[in-house]
């Protein structure tokens, strides 16, 4: 692996065979070539390395959901309370080692009371933290050199020393790091994902691969998650399922709901929809040996007593339907209207996913005796039309739209809508891009009603263009 460092091609990493030949990382490529003429060289790709590390981390989530990347090559797992599944921490480490070796990875696993201690032990292949060299302090070359000169070579040498002179000499960071290495202070790791509120998992001695078995397992997990949610008086808004394949791959399924729920049957329907909607079906490969269901997002959901006389709540039915359609079609395809403060017609109304927490909007009430001043349909992009007007700035007499000429018989207007100059990046200035629109309500000789506008006044622009923006009923 080579990488360009300070203008020269240098080795970024080398395999065990290269090590045996005396090559080391950081050596210039020219020097290495001089020693080993038939050296096989590849470009170093740090992004791919990081992706691979992420993939390994995904697989490691089978042991604990608290998993943190320690680039370029390390992973930190917080296995507090997770060891019992394997008996003890050492067995867990064994299992992890076996799995990684099966994939051809070389790894060093160390257990420590704090992440720093475990990291240092793994990095320097030390059995005890006292054997770890002072370089583990990460204090920089100057600090390490000074410590070594003082005869302090390992963390064990430092442990017995008083801390205050050390802090005075090398700075507070070194002492903090030392305390962490010596497991006197325990910083928690920051997991890659926030920890789920609830997680339930099922291990299999023999991997399972049939979809029905997988669904049955998920149903069982959903049932126990529902019980936990009920105890907490909560309902989940998001459910994530992780299917750990025996070869290390992890498949994820996520289901969102519009209202908090702990109804296992409903959840199963959503998950089935989700699986049906997958563009590439689940590939069980050699089978899944661990399935986990997590609830990362939950909200308060009161316990409801369903009485004999309660009728089916239409709101609940609607929420369930919205969830189903959102899961199948995508949340952004099931929408509701929302209002926005704007007097530009197309900006004043938008559509938002119906699953998102909707605020009730009070839409204007119709004015009795007045016809609708706004069309019931609006084109996303106004349709360009050719208009014949009686005189400049006048009302349209006829227009051509989609190769059809409409002769205007009734017309009302103009309704002048000015641009929102305060939204313009350069503020208000005459003629800086935004143009005034003159809207007309027209009816043609066949009785169709349209909403047309002329973009720009004659003193703003030389040749204003006409557009059809909407259709009236």
């Amino acid at each position, binding site marked *: 692996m080579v990488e360009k460092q300070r203008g020269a091609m240098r080795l970024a990493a080398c395999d065990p065979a290269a090590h045996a030949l005396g090559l080391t990382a950081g050596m210039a490529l020219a020097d290495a070539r001089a020693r080993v003429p038939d050296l096989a060289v590849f470009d170093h790709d740090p992004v791919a390395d990081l992706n691979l590390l992420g993939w390994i981390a995904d697989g490691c989530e089978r042991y604990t959901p608290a998993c943190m990347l320690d680039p370029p090559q390390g992973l930190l797992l917080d296995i507090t309370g997770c060891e019992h599944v394997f008996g003890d921490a050492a067995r867990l480490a064994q299992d992890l080692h076996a799995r990684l070796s099966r994939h051809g990875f070389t790894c060093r696993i160390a257990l420590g009371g704090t992440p720093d201690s475990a990291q240092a032990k793994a990095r320097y292949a030390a059995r005890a933290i006292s054997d770890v060299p002072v370089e583990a302090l990460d204090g920089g070359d100057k600090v390490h050199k000074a410590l070594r000169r003082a005869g302090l070579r390992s963390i064990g040498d430092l442990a017995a020393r008083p801390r205050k002179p050390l802090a005075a000499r090398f700075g507070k960071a070194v002492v903090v790091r030392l305390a962490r290495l010596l497991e006197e202070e325990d910083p928690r790791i920051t997991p890659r994902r926030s920890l789920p509120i609830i997680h339930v998992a099922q291990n299999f001695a023999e991997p399972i691969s049939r979809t029905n078995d997988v669904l049955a397992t998920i149903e069982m997990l959903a049932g126990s998650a529902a019980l936990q949610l009920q105890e907490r008086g909560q309902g989940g808004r998001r459910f994530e399922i992780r299917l750990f394949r025996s070869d290390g791959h992890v498949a994820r399924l996520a289901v969102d709901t519009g209202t908090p729920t702990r109804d296992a049957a409903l959840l199963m329907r959503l998950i089935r929809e989700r699986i049906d909607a997958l563009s590439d079906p689940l590939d069980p490969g050699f089978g899944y040996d661990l399935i986990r269901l997590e609830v990362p997002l939950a909200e308060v959901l009161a316990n409801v007593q369903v009485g004999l006389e309660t009728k089916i709540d239409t*709101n609940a039915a609607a929420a369930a*339907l919205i969830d189903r*359609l959102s899961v199948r*079609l995508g949340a952004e395809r099931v929408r509701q209207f929302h209002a926005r403060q704007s007097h530009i017609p197309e900006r004043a109304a938008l559509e938002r996913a119906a699953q998102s927490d909707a605020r009730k909007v009070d839409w204007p009430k*119709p004015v009795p005796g007045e*016809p609708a001043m706004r069309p019931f349909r609006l084109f996303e992009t106004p349709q360009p039309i050719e208009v014949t007007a009686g005189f400049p700035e006048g009302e349209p007499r006829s227009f051509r739209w989609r190769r059809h000429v409409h002769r205007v018989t*009734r017309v009302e207007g103009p309704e002048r809508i000015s641009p929102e100059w305060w939204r313009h990046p350069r503020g208000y200035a005459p003629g800086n891009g935004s143009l005034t629109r003159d809207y007309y309500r027209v009816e043609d000789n066949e*009785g169709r009603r349209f909403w047309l506008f002329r973009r720009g006044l004659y003193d703003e622009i030389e040749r204003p263009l006409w557009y059809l923006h909407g259709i*009236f*009923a």
Partner: protein
Amino acid sequence: MNKKPNHIQPTLSAGAFPSVHGMWKQHQSDAAQSLLPTGAPYVDERLRGGITQAGLHEFFGGAKADSHAAAAFALLLAWRLPESDAGIFWISGDKERQTSGRLYPYGLSAMGGDPARMLLVQTADLRDALRAAADAIRSKAASAVILETHGNARLVDLTSTRRLALAAAEAGVLALLVRGDAVPMPSAARTRWRICSAPSAPLPGNAPGLPTFDISLLRHRGGTAPFAARVTWDHATRSFFDAPLSGGLSAIVTDTETGPAARQRA
């Protein structure tokens, strides 16, 4: 005769008078299903009360540009339903939205509807749209489900419409199929309509007036004869009324206190 078991005895007498029995059955089924009146006296009289509330109805546009009129008429019919918590589902595909624009809530509220009740479902293709419509009907969460399709879609055939019609009858939901510019094909809908925009009675200053449609009933499963009418929508009463067939006429009778024009001004 003696082979037949005893419990079908009542049908024997009905067999002797098939037409009477048929009429009675028809009456029973009509009475069981509530009817949705349009509000326009002439139309409701011809329909013997209105259209079946729990059923599928089809709306075709008279010309290509009348697909909007068909959509508007279907929407206004859905607003004739009594107010309830249940939403009105508007289901359409990407293609329909691209060619005919999006529903504009300010326009809907100006016609007397409540945009907060509308739920919009936009699907990638017609297959998804039909499936979503069937789900929405069966869920009992909707008071009306409107499915808009454009062009001659082979997927909207006798089988798929029958599926929707049965679901609508079972769930008691008003299902409206807006077919735009399609050519009518056999379907299981209870009624089939052709809707065209019609000239409105002008307001002062020759301004366009209230939404007016030329509607014609093409087919009715209950046996009502086809007819044509012109109706205008009044957003204040949320109801249609019979419009005079000549749009210009009402402009003259503005100062009389009777007739549609007076109601329209009120």
